[in-house]
């Protein structure tokens, strides 16, 4: 009988240990779009990059894997007398797959010293858009500077010193100080290529991150095709300009079933559009893009697509080009030979938008200087692109913000104060897992505490059983 109890005790102990091992890490991490939580299946992806320059123009080429290209974005479908929107930013993947792929690159010339060490983390402030505790639209619109003056509706990427308190998104420093910061180069240049807006016309967006994320000065390469008051599109396709008589709209089935490819018409260009005709015999399934593409003007139109951006055999390959010095020092970082820059990349794919992107740690780019990777100098109009790729691991960053990284919740906060770069302490996969855990901070911490205590109880129970069952009277 005693031997049976001893065997049973050992069996229970071992079995429970094995079950704990098998089921650990489950039961907490679950998607909850109501709380803006959606964890991508893949936490890291590779990105390859090359850079080249000829003294006048600066070129970048990017390559990354994607199961399929997502080139549709933000569509309006006519249904039962109303225009319904498909493809706005949502938590997680857009349900119909209508959300464009993107690649973006932050650039700095040393004017934002934290960027070289911590990359895009410094741009993630308090109560950011699509975080679980995001600031509401009403709160942002009520802000005297960001809302009322700059017409912001959400807390977007911004630099730490644009706030008096990094843990308070609303504590924007005085406007005169913001202007002085910008003139001193305290901003990040943002190259932002989107597969729909406006790659089809060979343009990339050119943006800037300072106290918020703005488009550069000038006209952007796209604008909204929506009349808020009339609740209908502003523009429709002009068949005469398209050379395809009768085509005033796309067919929803072609979008939903992904029938339209790179060489088909799936986008609306300003020069191929005409004013919306409410008297046209619209039928269910007629679809119009909610964004209209145009070349753009001024600083915002500085970046173009070199050649054609295409997805092929499971990979996107995108090349961008811009003047080394655009002549817009308040928006762009000028590239100068024999200097080192810091860049950081991000990729959106699989119909994910907003914060559901993969990001890189900062990389040093040298123009005839030693760095993580070098831009190759060439003569002529276009680079040969015959150098090796720089391989970078991108990771899902989760809801990790700069305020948290500098708080008591981060063991490395002291290292940040000392200026120790993130790459010395963390790998990309580590940061990805930490990012996911941060999204379930309270739940995981609580479950961990219970697990720790339950484990101690099990060990105690086993100790009691073994000791009572092994000791004999004669001992």
């Amino acid at each position: 009988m005693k031997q049976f109890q001893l065997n049973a005790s050992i069996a229970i102990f071992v079995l429970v240990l094995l079950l704990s091992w098998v089921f650990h890490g489950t039961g907490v991490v679950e998607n909850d779009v109501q709380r803006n939580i959606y964890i991508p299946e893949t936490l890291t992806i590779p990105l390859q990059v090359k850079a080249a320059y000829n003294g006048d123009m600066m070129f970048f080429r990017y390559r990354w894997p994607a199961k399929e290209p997502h080139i549709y974005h933000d569509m309006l479908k006519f249904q039962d007398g109303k225009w319904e929107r498909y493809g706005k930013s949502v938590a997680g993947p857009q349900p119909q797959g209508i959300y464009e792929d993107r690649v973006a690159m932050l650039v700095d010339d040393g004017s934002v010293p934290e960027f070289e060490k911590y990359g895009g983390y410094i741009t993630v402030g308090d109560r950011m858009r699509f975080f679980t505790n995001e600031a509401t639209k009403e709160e942002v619109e009520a802000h005297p500077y960001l809302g009322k003056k700059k017409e912001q509706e959400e807390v977007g990427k911004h630099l730490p010193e644009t706030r008096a308190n990094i843990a308070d998104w609303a504590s924007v420093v005085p406007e005169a100080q913001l202007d002085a910061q910008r003139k001193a180069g305290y901003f990040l240049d943002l190259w932002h290529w989107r597969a729909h807006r406006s790659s089809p016309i060979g343009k990339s967006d050119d943006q800037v991150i300072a106290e918020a994320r703005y488009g550069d000065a000038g006209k952007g390469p796209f604008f909204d095709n929506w009349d808020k008051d009339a609740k209908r599109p502003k523009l429709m396709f002009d068949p005469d300009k398209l050379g395809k008589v009768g085509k005033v709209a796309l067919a929803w089935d072609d979008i939903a079933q992904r029938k339209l490819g790179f060489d088909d018409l799936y986008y609306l260009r300003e020069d191929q559009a005409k004013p919306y005709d409410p008297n046209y015999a619209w039928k269910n399934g007629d679809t119009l893009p909610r964004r209209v593409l145009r070349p753009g003007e001024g600083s915002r139109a500085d970046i173009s697509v070199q050649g054609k951006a295409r997805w092929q055999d499971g990979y996107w390959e995108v090349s961008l080009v811009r003047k080394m010095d655009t002549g817009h020092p308040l928006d762009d970082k000028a590239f100068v030979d024999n200097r080192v820059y810091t860049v950081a990349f991000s990729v959106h794919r699989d119909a994910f938008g907003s914060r559901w992107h993969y990001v890189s740690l900062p990389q040093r780019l040298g123009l005839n200087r030693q760095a993580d990777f070098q831009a190759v100098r060439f003569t002529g109009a276009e680079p040969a692109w015959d150098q090796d790729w720089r391989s970078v691991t991108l990771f899902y960053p989760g809801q990790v913000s700069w305020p948290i990284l500098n708080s008591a919740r981060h063991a490395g906060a002291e290292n940040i104060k000392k200026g120790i770069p993130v790459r010395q302490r963390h790998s990309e996969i580590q940061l990805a897992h930490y990012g996911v855990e941060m999204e379930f901070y309270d739940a995981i911490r609580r479950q961990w505490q219970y697990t720790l205590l339950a484990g101690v109880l099990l060990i105690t129970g086993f100790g009691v059983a073994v000791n009572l069952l092994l000791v004999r009277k004669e001992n």
Partner: protein
Amino acid sequence: MVAYHHLLVHFPIALWTTAALMILWRALSDGALAQAAGRLLTPLLALSIVTGFIAYVVGLSVFPFETLTSSPLGRNHLTAATWALAYWIVVLVTSWRLGEAVWIGVRRWIMLGLGALGGILLTVTGALGGHLSGSPSAVSQIFRLLGWEVYTTFYVPNFMLVLLIVSALALIGLGVAGRDRR
């Protein structure tokens, strides 16, 4: 305090490693030297618990508690250290109460199992400590191969918590039910 924690953990690591090896040796051999090692086990374990407890307490003061328990690695290190300390206390009590009898019959194999599990917990604790101090080793690759990513917090779902508690109570019940009554 981090430097003192690094200094102090050498003692329990060395003592528990030695204890695990002595248990292995004694379980497999009845030779005179192995028997001598077996007799040394209890004082060795007692010393290891004292030094382990000191290192544990000092370790708790390396970071503020909120900081330590906000990091997956910190949580895991704390879990492993707590379980290792608790577990080696069980080994100490068993060795202490049973004395030489712990090496008789099937008990020696139970001791071998206890020593092996203690060694594993010690390895986990030490490997996670290395990660925390910025010197990660390849040991974590083994954990990954076995299904645990060390950069994620080790926790179990609610039904496992219930099972752990019920099992602990069942173990105590089995012990009480099967103990020799005087």
